[in-house]
């Protein structure tokens, strides 16, 4: 096997054909991870021994004729997902020594399907960031140019898949945290519909927006992995009771007659012109495949970033209240009293951006401001959601850029929160409306990847993966590997 050329689909075939064992495959990836770690810092924890044991078990299952189609395929998990017996940090000093007593439902589902976990991937602290610079464990570097950010918050997942040091990775998306790093690293990312994957065991940031998903090389790989991590879970009160289709069976469907909406507000003055050209080129490929293109408008979409920066911090301030230095997590030295224990444990345990979001949320929920900020934002959210519903009256899928620009230098936007928040201007809308979204590689600007964003109606993952797969059969942007990792 050759890791740089491998996809989950090809590895699954190689394992099934006996070309290599899962132990051999896992060992090869562990070597690639160790070699790349100094340059990328993509991992927080590498679970080599456990991975080799799981791989041996996968090989034994295969020998007994008990292999499924993912048995023995190595993957890695974003460090926001709880993994039983393994340190789960969420990128924070607060949880630097937290060993999860249970598995997230997503982790259990993928383990049940036979995948082998290689380790836990770096991320922005508590998934709050768009550059992976807020991690307590240090910034992740973009494999296309290690001076650049990989995007965030799932920066470790995107960098690891782009460098082919893991075949695929889980990730989460609250405002673009799967799609934006996928775009900046030149890989495929999918955020499913809100409620499609269980949030149980996925450390909460903003519960009405958080959704688990994947970063993979190809749409086909995402289709293979999405099934086992989806479905109803009674342990998540917003999990949706709805059957999960086999996403691989519709990948090859024709795009003849597909109506693509180009959202006017996605092509605004903030969009880099060269970036825009790559998006337009990609759309031309879809037209060649039989899709029709029309322009649509979502007039309230420009308000999605300010809406998000009320709703998400409000939910964050409530969710992160659980970190009190009593039952788990960081505790300060020699607290004078209980209040001192709370305030210093939290002040020391959380990083600067997390504290900024907690305080923003605390303020908008405080007496006298709730109506002006929180209720107002939830009303605007309703308007944004209605705009999307209106657009889907005349379109099957909406297309646009994932990110206004390609990857930017580490440090360039770190001290200016508003500039950083505007990185997610095209992705936040889908979270506010609970819609599924994807980013797929569609070219390069000055050697850095550009992503095409696809947004679909609720539960249209199969159609989105189908469209992305057909595009990836016509193009090879998703198969490009950074020279340093080829």
């Amino acid at each position, binding site marked *: 096997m050759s890791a740089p050329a491998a996809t989950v689909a090809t590895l699954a075939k190689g394992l099934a054909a006996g070309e290599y064992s899962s132990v051999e495959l896992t060992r090869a990836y562990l070597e690639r991870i160790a070699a790349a770690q100094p340059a990328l810092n993509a991992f927080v924890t590498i679970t080599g021994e456990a991975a080799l044991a799981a791989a041996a078990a996968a090989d034994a299952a295969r020998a007994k004729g008990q292999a499924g189609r993912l048995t023995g395929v190595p993957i890695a998990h974003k460090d926001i997902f709880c993994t039983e017996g393994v340190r789960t940090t969420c990128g924070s000093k607060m949880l630097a020594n937290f060993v999860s*007593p249970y598995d997230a439902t997503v982790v259990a589902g993928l383990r049940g399907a036979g995948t082998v976990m290689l380790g836990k991937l770096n991320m922005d602290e508590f998934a709050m960031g768009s550059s992976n610079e807020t991690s307590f464990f240090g910034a992740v570097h973009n494999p296309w140019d290690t001076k650049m950010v990989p995007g965030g918050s799932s920066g470790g997942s995107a960098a690891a898949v782009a460098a082919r040091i893991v075949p695929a990775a889980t990730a989460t998306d609250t405002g673009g945290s799967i799609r934006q790093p996928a775009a900046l690293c030149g890989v495929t990312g999918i955020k499913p519909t809100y409620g499609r994957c269980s949030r149980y065991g996925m450390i909460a940031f903003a519960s009405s927006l958080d959704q688990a998903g994947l970063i993979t090389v190809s749409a086909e790989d995402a289709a293979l992995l999405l099934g086992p991590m989806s479905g109803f879970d009674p342990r998540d009160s917003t999990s949706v009771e709805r059957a999960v289709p086999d996403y691989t069976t519709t990948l090859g469907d024709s795009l003849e007659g597909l109506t693509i909406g180009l959202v006017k507000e996605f092509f605004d003055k903030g969009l880099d012109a060269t970036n825009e050209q790559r998006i337009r080129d990609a759309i031309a490929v879809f037209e060649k495949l039989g899709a029709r293109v029309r322009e649509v408008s979502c007039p309230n979409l420009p*308000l999605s970033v300010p809406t998000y920066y009320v709703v998400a911090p409000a939910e964050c301030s409530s969710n992160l209240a659980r970190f009190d230095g009593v039952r788990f997590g960081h505790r300060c030295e020699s607290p004078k009293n209980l*209040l001192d224990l709370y*305030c210093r444990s939290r002040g020391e345990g959380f990083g600067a951006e997390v504290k900024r979001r907690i305080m923003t949320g605390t303020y908008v929920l405080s007496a006298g401001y709730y109506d002006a900020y929180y209720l107002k934002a939830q009303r605007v959210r309703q308007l944004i*959601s209605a705009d999307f519903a209106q657009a889907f009256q005349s379109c099957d899928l909406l297309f646009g850029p994932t990110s206004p620009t390609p990857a930017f230098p580490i440090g360039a936007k770190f001290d200016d929160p508003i500039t950083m928040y505007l990185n997610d201007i095209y992705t936040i809308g889908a979270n506010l*409306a609970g819609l599924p979204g994807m980013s797929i590689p569609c070219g390069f600007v000055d050697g850095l990847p550009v992503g095409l964003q696809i947004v679909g109606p609720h539960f249209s993952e199969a159609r989105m993966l189908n469209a992305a797969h057909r595009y990836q059969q016509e193009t090879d942007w998703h198969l490009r590997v950074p020279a340093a990792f080829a």
Partner: protein
Amino acid sequence: MSLSRADIENIARLARLELTEAEIPVYVDSLSKIFAFVGELDRAPTSGIAPMAHPLPGFAQRLRADEVSEPNRRDTYQQNAPQVEAGLYLVPKVIE
């Protein structure tokens, strides 16, 4: 919109966050900018629009029966606790 040092100290107190002297002016500046930015929402006409209560239209939060569903795993959970004794979480004395 501009927040004062006293505003930031009050928010930090409500949020149970101790800030260092150096952090306070940074948050005075950045939270003022954030609230000026989210002030854009004021221009959205929302009269008669209901606040969104669930990201999926037509869905409501599911409830479950009030029954014990999880086994007692106290000892496992307490392995992550900063300080425990005899199965109890220890905190500074609350009542003198």
